[in-house]
C-alpha cells in the first residue's frame, strides 16, 4: 500500500553502510524514527505505508513490536561495524500508520530498546503520533511516565463534512478532551491540520483553525492536501466525484492560517509548521526537533516497514510490506530494500531544498556563487526577506513560502 519506494542501488543483506558515511556523519545529533504500519481504516487521501488488518497477509500486529526491537539491535550493530561514532539518541518519533493502535506497553517496549541500544540523551524529545479516537487519559499517562515528551494529534479538521471526505472517523468534539488529557499527563501537544480538502470552504478552514487555537496547543502543523497518485481520493477526483483542488484557494487558506497563528502567538519555523512562543517561551521551545533534524540533514535510523534512514550522506529504505519486513528481520537480515549515496551536487540540492524551508535555515554564505547571484532578484520579487538576507540568511516571505519550490529551483 502507499506510494512506491524510490529506485536506488541494492542494499547488502548485512546492512553494512558504505565507508563514506564515517566522514560525512560529523557530530550531528542522532534520531530514531519508529514506524507503526497499522491503521483501523485507510483514509482516502493517505499514501503512507500502512495496512488495515485485512491487508496484512497473515502478519500479526501483536508480533510487530518484537520485530522492531530486533531491527533496533541490528541498527546498533550495523552502525558499530560501519565505523560510525556511537551517539546517544536526541529525538525519537513514533509515526505511522497509527502508533497508538498498539498497546502502550508495546510502544514503551520499543522506546526501551532504543534506550538500551544507544541511550537517550538528556532532554531527549520523544514524540508519538496519535489519532484522537485511539487514546485515553490512562494511555497517555503511561506514555508520559515511560519517557514520552510529546504527542501529535491528527486532528485534520473540526468540520464534520471535511472529516468525512478525508475518511477520518474521530468525533471532533473529542479532540479538546484528548488534548487536555495529554497536557494533564505532562506531554507537549501538537495538532495536525489539513487544508484544501475537496468541498472545504475558506469559512470551514477558519472554523478548524479557531477550534485548534482554542485548545492552545504548543505546536501546529498545517498541510495543504496533496492528492497522491494511486489513492482513493485521486480516483474520486479523476472520476469527478470531487473537484480538483484549487491552488489559489489553498493559497488563501495558507495566508489565513499564517495570519491567525501569528496573532495567536505562533511563529512559523518551517513552511508548514508553527510553534508557540512568547515573552517567557523561547522560539525554539516547542519546535519539533525530530522534524528539524530531517530538514537539517542530520542522521536518523528509520525502524519498520518502508521506513527511510539517513546516515552520513547515505539514504536507504526498508521493504514495504510488514510480511516481507518480518521475514527479513526474523532471518537476521537487514530489511533495507535499496539505498543511494547521492553525489556532492545532489547533496547540495537536498541541502538547499530542505534548509530553505526552515526560517533563516539557509546561510547565504553557504550557497554557490551562481545561487548567491539570485538573492537580489529573489528579494526584488518579494520571495525572500531583505533584512534577513542582510543578516546573512535566506528567509522566505509569506509569498515566498507559498512559492518555495520556485525559490529552491532558482537557488539550485
Amino acid at each position, binding site marked *: 500500500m502507499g506510494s512506491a519506494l524510490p529506485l536506488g542501488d541494492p542494499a547488502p543483506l548485512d546492512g553494512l553502510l558504505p565507508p563514506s558515511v564515517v566522514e560525512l556523519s560529523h557530530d550531528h545529533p542522532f534520531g530514531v524514527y519508529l514506524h507503526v504500519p497499522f491503521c483501523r481504516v485507510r483514509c482516502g487521501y493517505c499514501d503512507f505505508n500502512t495496512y488495515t488488518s485485512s491487508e496484512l497477509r497473515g502478519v500479526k500486529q501483536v508480533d510487530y513490536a518484537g520485530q522492531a526491537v530486533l531491527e533496533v539491535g541490528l541498527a546498533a550493530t550495523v552502525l558499530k561495524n560501519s565505523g560510525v561514532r556511537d551517539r546517544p539518541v536526541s529525538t525519537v518519533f513514533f509515526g505511522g500508520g497509527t502508533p497508538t493502535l498498539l498497546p502502550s506497553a508495546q510502544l514503551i517496549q520499543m522506546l526501551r530498546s532504543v534506550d538500551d541500544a544507544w541511550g537517550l540523551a538528556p532532554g531527549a524529545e520523544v514524540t508519538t503520533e496519535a489519532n484522537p479516537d485511539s487514546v485515553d487519559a490512562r494511555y497517555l499517562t503511561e506514555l508520559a511516565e515511560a519517557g514520552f515528551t510529546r504527542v501529535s494529534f491528527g486532528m485534520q479538521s473540526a468540520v464534520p463534512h471535511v472529516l468525512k471526505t478525508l475518511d477520518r472517523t474521530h468525533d471532533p468534539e473529542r479532540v479538546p478532551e484528548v488534548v487536555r488529557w495529554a497536557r494533564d499527563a505532562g506531554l507537549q501537544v501538537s495538532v495536525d491540520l489539513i487544508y484544501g480538502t475537496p468541498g472545504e470552504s475558506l469559512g470551514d478552514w477558519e472554523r478548524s483553525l479557531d477550534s485548534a487555537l482554542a485548545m492552545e496547543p504548543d505546536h501546529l502543523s498545517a498541510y495543504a492536501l496533496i492528492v497522491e497518485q494511486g489513492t482513493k481520493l485521486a480516483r474520486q477526483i479523476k472520476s469527478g466525484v470531487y473537484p480538483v483542488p484549487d491552488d489559489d484557494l489553498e493559497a488563501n487558506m495558507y495566508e489565513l492560517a499564517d495570519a491567525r497563528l501569528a496573532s495567536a502567538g505562533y511563529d512559523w519555523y518551517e513552511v508548514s509548521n508553527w510553534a508557540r512562543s512568547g515573552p517567557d517561551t523561547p522560539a525554539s521551545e516547542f519546535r519539533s526537533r525530530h522534524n528539524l533534524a*530531517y530538514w537539517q540533514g542530520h542522521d536518523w535510523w528509520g525502524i519498520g516497514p518502508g521506513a527511510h534512514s539517513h546516515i552520513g550522506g547515505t539514504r536507504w529504505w526498508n521493504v514495504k510490506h510488514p510480511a516481507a519486513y518480518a521475514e527479513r528481520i526474523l532471518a537476521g537480515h537487514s530489511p533495507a530494500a535499496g539505498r543511494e549515496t547521492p553525489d556532492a551536487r545532489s547533496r547540495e540540492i537536498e541541502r538547499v531544498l530542505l534548509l530553505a524551508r526552515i526560517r533563516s535555515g539557509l546561510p547565504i554564505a553557504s550557497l554557490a556563487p551562481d545561487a548567491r547571484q539570485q538573492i537580489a532578484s529573489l528579494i526584488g520579487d518579494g520571495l525572500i526577506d531583505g533584512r534577513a538576507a542582510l543578516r546573512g540568511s535566506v528567509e522566505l516571505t509569506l509569498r515566498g513560502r*507559498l512559492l518555495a519550490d*520556485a525559490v529552491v529551483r532558482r537557488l539550485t
Partner: protein
Amino acid sequence: MSPRAVQELQPASTDPAFIRNFCIIAHIDHGKSTLADRMLQITGVVSDRDMRAQYLDRMDIERERGITIKSQAVRMPWAQNGQTYALNMIDTPGHVDFTYEVSRSLAACEGAILLVDAAQGIEAQTLANLYLALDNDLKIIPVLNKIDLPAADPDKYAEELAGLIGGKAEDVLRVSGKTGMGVEELLDLVVESIPAPVGDIDAPPRAMIFDSVYDAYRGVITYVRMIDGKLTPREKIMMMSTKSTHEVLEIGVSSPEPTPSKGLAVGEVGYLITGVKDVRLSKVGDTVTTHLRPATVALKGYSEPKPMVFSGLYPIDGSDYPILREALDKLKLSDAALVYEPETSVALGFGFRCGFLGLLHLEIITERLEREFNLDLIATAPSVIYEVTTDDRKTVTVTNPSEFPGGKIKSVSEPMVKASILAPKDYVGTIMELCQGRRGSLDGMEYVGTDRVELHYHMPLGEIVFDFFDHLKSRTQGYASLDYEPIGEQEADLVKVDILLQGEAVDAFSAIVHRDKAYAYGVLMTERLKKLIPRQQFDVPIQAAIGARIIARESISAIRKDVLAKCYGGDITRKRKLLEKQKEGKKRMKMVGRVEVPQEAFIAALSGDTETKDKK
C-alpha cells in the same frame, strides 16, 4: 491470350510503330501500383521470385502511404499476333501538389489507362488528371480495378466512366491487379488502341525530361521521352532552358532495373546519366538536345517549379540545426521543387523557411526529414504568397507573416485556386457550408454518375492550406476528395494578426487572415495559449492585435502556490528527484520577454493540441 515476348526489341533501333507509351491515371489506393506490379510480372520483366509488392514505388513513405511521389518509366516487351512490341509504362505521381509533374508525364505518352476502384468510383484528383490527359489528346482506356472485392459494383461505375469519357459501359475493362484477372487483355488493348508515337528520326534530337531523380551512387538520373532524332552514349548533350552541356555517361531503359543501351530514338522512353549531382540541372519539362547539332525550338510546356505553400521548419532540439541544414541540402538534390532559406524565430530558435508545391509536399518533406535524418521537427502554420502594396505604392512579397509591412496598407492580394470537390450527393450541404466559411464562391456543380456530385469553387489557397482538407474529410466521413489548381491572384481584405505575451509578439503565432476572421483567430489563439502556458510568478496578459489595435485578450493570473506542503524523512529522495525533473523542464523553456514558455506549448498551440499543459 498473348504469350510473353520471346525476343525483346532493342532500344535505339525500335520502329516507332511497335512502341506504345502509356501511363496509369488513378486515385491513391485505387490499386495502380498493384496493377503495375502485375504487368511487370506477366510481361516477365520481373521474375516471380523477385516480385516485391509495389515494385515501382521506391521510397518507404510511398509504400506506406500507398502513393507515388516520383514517377518512373518501365519498358516491357509484349507480343501480339507474332509481333513484339515495346510497352513503356510511365508512372505518374498521383497527387494534386504535383500537377506539373503529372502534366509532363502525360505529355510523354500517347495513351492512358484510367484506373478506377470498382468499389469507390472516380475521385476528384483522378478527374483532374483525366482532364489533363484529354487535354494532351491521350487515348483513354477506362478500367475498373479490384473487381474481386465483395464490395465492388462494376456495373454502376462502368456507367459512370462511360458517362464521363463517352463510349459504352460494356467496353469498360474489368481487372483485378491483385489476382491478375484481365491484365493480359489490358496489355493487348494497350497495343491495339493506343497510337504509336510519331517523330522525325532525321531531325536534331529533342527529348522531353519528365522526371529526374537523385541517386546517391549515380548522381542524377534523368528520365526522357524522345520526340525527334536519336541520342547515343558519350554524346555531348545540351539542356535547352539553360544551354548547359553535359556528357552522356550512360543511356538506357528501365526494365525495371536500369539497363544501358546503344541509345534512344524517336518515340522511346529511357534514362540518361551525366554525372550531374543536382536535379536542378536537369529540370522536369526541359528539352534535351545535342550540342553538335542542336534543335532550335524547345518542346512546349516547360515551366519552373513554383512553391505555393510556405512553412518554417524548426528542430525541437536546437542543437539539431546543423543536421537539419545538411538534411535539406541532401533532399534538395532529389527534389527540384524544394526551396528554403535560414530563418530565426524568437519562439522556436533557428530553422528554415521552406517553400513547397502544396500541403502534401510539405508533409512528405517533413516526414522524410524526421524519418531519414532522425530529426524531431516543428512546422509553423502553412502560409501562402501575398503581394502587399503599401500606401506609398511599394509592393512587398510576403511568404512569412513576419515580413508583412507595418504602416498603411493599400491592398493585399492572395493566390486563388479553382477547387474541385467530389463527394456523395448527401454531403453537398455540409461541403457548401465549409467552402463558404472559407471564402469560397461556387462556380458550378455537376453530377458524376447518379449519386455523386462535383462542386467547383473559387477559393483562396490560404484557406485551403489551413486544415481545410481535414475538415472536409471529417464532415464527409472521409468520402470527399479534393483537387485544386492555381488560377492567379485576387485582392482581399487581409490583415496580420499578432499574438502578444506580456506585450511581446510571438512570431510563430502571427498569421495573415481575412479581416472578418481576425477576431476568431485572435480568440482561438489567446484561449489556446491560456490553456497551454503555465502560470508565472506574475500576471501574463495574452493579446491578439492587428497593428496596435487589440482585438482579443486573455490573462494568465500569477501563480500563488508552488510548494509541496509536506516534506519529511521519507520524502527527501522523491522530492529531490522531482526538483531535478522540474529543473530539467525549465531548461527546455523558451523565454518570451520574462515569460517562460515550454517548447511543448508552442508545439501544441501550433498543432491545436491543447491537452498537454505542463504544470511546472
